[in-house]
């Protein structure tokens, strides 16, 4: 079944100087408080993080509920904002593949895919024998996912004690953490170009379409850096 030694090795990535636990907890605490404001009860807030576990999508849901958007609008808006998970999965799972591993592990553990777990897995997968990489991934994913659920509950419970300045402070932690991790991942010219172009085009395209901006910016910047790499011969 699951190699527990490797699973726990993955789980252990929650601690140490590169820990994602603090930034994850910070943003899901802020989310827990926001979900309470949006009218969710504690079970619903926990269920949202349990079943969705994708912060930008949950933010869209909370804000849509506050303005009274329809369910179909919520579905489309969330699908668009979380579509990034598709290229992210395809750029990670082939690295974790092994023919001796059952498919259910891949279909189930794709739920753990989020920016934090993705960046950690990309950073560390090479240290693990290919055969057990999926177990390592399940360890990382289970750790980050449970942190998010617990933090949502903490945020919901503490929401009355969190003033606005604290919530704003918590909200910046996540983008700062991800930016730092991405800069750490810029170890070749193509990835560096992809990150710089994406950073520039994201807000630029946003001026024309708030919904499609991220998708188009990602596709354009990624393809340009790919073609650059092909021309460069690397």
């Amino acid at each position, binding site marked *: 079944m699951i190699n527990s030694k490797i699973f726990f090795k993955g789980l252990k990535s929650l601690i140490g*100087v590169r820990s*994602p636990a*603090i930034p994850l907890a*910070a943003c899901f605490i802020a989310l827990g408080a926001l979900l309470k404001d949006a*009218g969710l009860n504690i079970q*619903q807030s926990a269920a*949202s993080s349990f*079943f*969705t576990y994708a912060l930008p*999508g*949950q933010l*869209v849901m909370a*804000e849509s509920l506050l303005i009274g958007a329809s*369910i179909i609008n*919520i*579905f*489309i808006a969330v*699908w668009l904002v*979380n579509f990034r*998970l*598709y290229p992210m*999965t*395809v*750029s990670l799972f082939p*690295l974790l*593949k092994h023919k001796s591993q059952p498919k259910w592990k*891949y*279909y189930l553990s*794709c739920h753990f895919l989020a920016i934090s777990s993705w960046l950690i897995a990309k950073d560390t997968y090479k240290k693990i024998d290919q055969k057990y990489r999926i177990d390592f991934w399940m360890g990382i994913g289970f750790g980050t996912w449970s942190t998010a659920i617990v933090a949502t509950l903490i945020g919901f419970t503490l929401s009355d004690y969190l003033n606005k*300045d*604290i919530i*704003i*402070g918590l*909200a*910046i*932690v996540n983008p*700062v953490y991800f*930016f*730092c991790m991405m800069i*750490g*991942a810029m170890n070749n010219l*193509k990835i560096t170009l*992809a990150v*710089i172009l*994406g*950073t520039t085009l*994201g*807000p630029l395209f*946003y001026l024309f379409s*708030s919904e499609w901006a*991220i998708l188009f910016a*990602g*596709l*354009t*910047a*990624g*393809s340009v*850096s*790919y073609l650059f*790499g092909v021309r460069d011969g690397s």
Partner: protein
Amino acid sequence: MDLNNIIVLAIIATSVATFISRFLGAVTSERVDANSKLFDWFNLVAYSTLAALLSRIIIFPAGVLADAELIVRLLVLVCCIFIFIIMKKNLVIPTIFSAILLSVLTSI
């Protein structure tokens, strides 16, 4: 429909909309080889999409972050990246510092 049902439906809609992308990714991955050009392209698109999303969050934030001035948000980000680099890629210190710095700067 009462609010409680709307919330439950919204949670289901959000979860399904999110899981579709993950699941399709897992299915597509079965046919993508890690050494192929296609994988390389997906990898770069993933990094670019992430970068686009993060810079959008900093420059055009949704929610509470919008209450802090743009210049303040950028200042916090640049300071923390600088700390990250000089602290030999320690991630805990710059992330804790970012929350404190932004809370202080927005409260004054």
